[in-house]
């Protein structure tokens, strides 16, 4: 039984011009101890999909899903109040901007303590002990002094460590990290990623890492999901994704990276831009920008097809001997 299983998750938002399909057909399986990365450009629905899993979207959002289970419990059949209890307990989330996700009016210690009080309970003394222990685990020096510090007294890296401590407060089984290092400097990013990996291993958590940084993906993830314009276009183990990408979008994205591009003055690019609400093509969503597109691609949307560990949404996949469909 997998820790988290998602089948055919879609999210749409109402706009003045009808429904906007932000997420379309996401399939995920995360086991305890897995590290799954979700990669995509802005607007590809990475964060919205995870917000839907955590039930954090506004009530206007239309969420449809065939299956949404955590540890075998059906989240779709669960009343909202009960789902609310899972958040922070079984599933925890870390957000991109540590500075703006902490409440400036309360001390860091108080905010971590709050998470423990709600999910685990215990006496004030026990809870304080646990907060200090958590602060120590995430590598904050001098925890006793930091317990009483307000968020503005801490640097970005320290705030993110405090956020991680808060997420770990109730021993979550699944940790969702939404761009946890994007706002941080590279040397601090390296510290935070290392900390996340160490904690994930020692606590045996499942980790979902949302990011747009291919370097971070290559160095941390085991499985990678690539999203484009709300759709899941490819899922592969990390080695295969970087060495034999099957979807033309993944391949083009990797080629456009300055460190992977062939030498010369100019980088390979992907022409055009991501389709918006009004100019969504009838066929494959990537077809207007795809160099491999053929007539079928412009007419018919490819379905997401599974082949053992791989998922792919493409009529004419690259780097494959046997045809996947």
């Amino acid at each position, binding site marked *: 039984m997998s820790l988290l299983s998602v089948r055919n998750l879609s999210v749409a938002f109402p706009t003045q011009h009808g429904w906007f399909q932000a997420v379309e057909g996401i399939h995920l399986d995360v086991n305890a101890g897995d590290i799954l990365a979700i990669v995509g*450009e*802005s607007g590809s629905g990475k964060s919205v999909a995870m917000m839907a899993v955590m039930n954090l979207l506004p009530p206007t959002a239309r969420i449809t899903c065939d299956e949404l289970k955590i540890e075998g419990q059906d989240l779709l059949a669960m009343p909202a109040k009960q789902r609310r209890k899972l958040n922070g307990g079984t599933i925890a989330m870390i957000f991109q901007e540590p500075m703006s996700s902490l409440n400036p009016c309360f001390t860091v210690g108080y905010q971590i303590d709050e998470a423990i009080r709600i999910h685990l309970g215990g006496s004030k003394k026990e809870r304080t002990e646990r907060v200090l222990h958590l602060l120590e685990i995430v590598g904050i020096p001098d925890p006793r002094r930091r317990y009483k510090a307000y968020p503005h007294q801490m*640097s*970005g*890296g*320290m705030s993110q460590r405090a956020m991680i401590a808060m997420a770990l407060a109730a021993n979550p089984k699944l940790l969702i990290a939404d761009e946890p290092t994007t706002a941080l*400097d*590279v*040397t*601090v*990013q*390296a*510290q935070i*990623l290392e900390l996340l990996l160490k904690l994930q291993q020692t606590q045996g958590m499942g980790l979902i890492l949302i990011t*747009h*940084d*291919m*370097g*971070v*993906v*290559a*160095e941390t993830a085991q499985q990678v999901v690539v999203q484009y314009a709300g759709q899941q276009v490819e899922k592969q183990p*990390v*080695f295969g*994704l*970087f*060495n034999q990408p099957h979807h033309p979008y993944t391949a*083009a*994205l*990797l080629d*456009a*990276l*300055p*460190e*992977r*591009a062939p030498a010369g*003055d*100019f*980088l*390979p*690019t*992907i022409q055009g*831009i*991501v389709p918006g609400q009004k100019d969504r093509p009838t066929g494959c969503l990537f077809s207007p920008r795809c160099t491999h597109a053929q007539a079928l691609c412009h007419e018919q949307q490819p379905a997401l097809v599974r082949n053992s560990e791989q998922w792919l949404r493409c009529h004419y996949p690259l780097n494959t001997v046997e045809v996947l469909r």
Partner: protein
Amino acid sequence: MSEVLRAVNLQQEYSARQGMFQKPLYVRALNGVSFSLNAGETLAVVGESGCGKSTLARSLTLIETPSAGELWLAGEKVNTANKPDAALRQRVQMVFQNPYGSLNPRKTIQQMLEEPLLLNTKLSSEARRAAVADMMSRVGLRPEFAERYPHMFSGGQRQRIAIARALMLKPQVVVLDEPVSALDLSVRAQILNLLTELQQDLGLAYVFISHDLSVVQRIADYVMVMYFGRAVEYADAATIFSTPQHPYTKALFSATPVAEVGEKRERIHLQGEPPSPLRPPQGCPFGPRCAYVQDSCRKEVPALRELKGAQVACVRAEAINEPQLPNISARLL
């Protein structure tokens, strides 16, 4: 090639008030930076937030006049005591990081691109219109879009507009402050290509401020690594990426994730964070985080010195770079 920009010991001080009756404390955000840049070349400035990259950009573009040091633009010395004249300012232009914040939402593209000409030249309205259309097609925008507002464009297109605006007065130097870090991967390559193309066509000199080393490696001719308001290493790109010599440069390079699976590189772990500018450490500013620190490092701030084709500000550079230590950054190439 002709030299278009030279900075000699550039400094920028800010005062930080401690209290109403206390003497203000001075923070030196930029502490003696020197370099020279020729037409058609790119100098990349890298470093973490708070290292003085953006202060350098503000000093070079004369948004703030440097508090000490000399700045030469195309052979003319910029007077730091008086307000530099408009003609000199026109030669250096700037492109900002966030194209969503740097364009006025209430002005059309035509108005925005026309404004520098309106203020600084006596061109007729027809000539201005023609110049705007010419510049738009040059940066890859359709001239018909001139009457549109910024919100009608995507992030990449907006950055093209910002670049076009910087080029309207035909500057010799363009300061690019993280021009692609707010953009998506697929758009990033398009903008980098545009910058390369414009540099080749117009012979522009770029000061490219970035924290993304893979981008820097791609487009820079020279690289300056900054830490705590000073240059700690300054060399041509090939030298610095093949043999980084300063411990901070090494750590920075090793911390950058590389998009190759199975590349397990040795990572130098930096402890802690950069020091507070209000309480600078004794001696080498990198000392408190440096793995190779010794007593000799705490005596005085190391100055840049010539070493194996680069300029390095580290008293122990030779000792650190003995051949028995594994060269961690060779894989970056």
